[in-house]
């Protein structure tokens, strides 16, 4: 038995589609593989931690251009011209909403952290000793968006104790 509740890729896809449809009036669809991206592409990552009976993170990652378009869609305006506080706020809030809905499918009780947003090129985001449960590329606005869920070490320890 695992400690991941009823979490399946298709549920994560459904959550993303519902959140993007309701909050941005955008359709998103799952991709088989990560879309190719130019080297040194500027990327925005928004992560929200889940802590409690289950521990881990939910992260949304996309290009800066996609982030600007998502922010425009959520704020009902044209795509924002550059990554600013509003773009980071929108990505963080989307990660927060997605994480909240994913949390309801995991063992509880647990709490959400405030969102953390990273903006830059050539960086990698790593949860130490984490186990990646989901890494789902999605097609949104003609470009890629990646949803990842990583279970943290504490959850793994708890699992070992309970086994």
């Amino acid at each position, binding site marked *: 038995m695992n400690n991941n509740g009823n979490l399946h890729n298709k549920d994560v896809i459904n959550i993303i589609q519902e959140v993007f449809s309701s*909050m941005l009036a955008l359709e998103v669809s799952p991709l088989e593989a990560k879309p190719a991206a130019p080297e040194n592409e500027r990327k925005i990552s928004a992560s929200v931690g889940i802590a409690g009976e289950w521990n881990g993170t939910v992260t949304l990652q996309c290009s800066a251009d996609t982030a600007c378009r998502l922010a425009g869609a959520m*704020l009902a305006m044209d795509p924002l011209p550059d990554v600013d506080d509003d773009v980071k*706020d929108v990505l963080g*809030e989307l990660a927060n909403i997605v994480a*909240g809905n994913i949390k309801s499918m995991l063992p509880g009780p647990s709490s959400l952290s405030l969102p953390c947003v990273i903006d830059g090129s050539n960086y990698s985001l790593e949860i130490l000793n984490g186990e990646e449960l989901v890494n789902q590329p999605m097609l949104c606005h003609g470009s890629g968006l990646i949803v990842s869920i990583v279970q943290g070490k504490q959850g793994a320890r708890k699992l070992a104790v309970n086994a």
Partner: protein
Amino acid sequence: MKAAIIDDSRAMRMIIGRTLKELGFEVIEAANGREGLDCLKNDPEADLVLVDWNMPEMNGLEFVLALRGSQHLCHLPIVVVTSETEASQAERALEAGANEYVTKPFSKEDLVDRLRRLGFPQ
């Protein structure tokens, strides 16, 4: 009618505010529970409060408890609008004194429906 929107996300304040303005509300905003309490103390004409759960400084649950404990503001209807989707969280918010609980994502119709249950727009 005047409503206070308390959320650390400016985007969410804009989205909720747009719907409220369409319903005829004047909107005031705050970025966390502490700011929200100060805002309401300084503006006694508010008729309704919409508050997020996860915020820095003072979260939504702490805000609900503080408002219900306030002699002058305890009568205000409170709608918690949050990403916390677990039923146990909704129970905690309602037990603390919130009147309605809306989970994100929500549609404009979801929000309007909850406000109508509270008698808005008046």
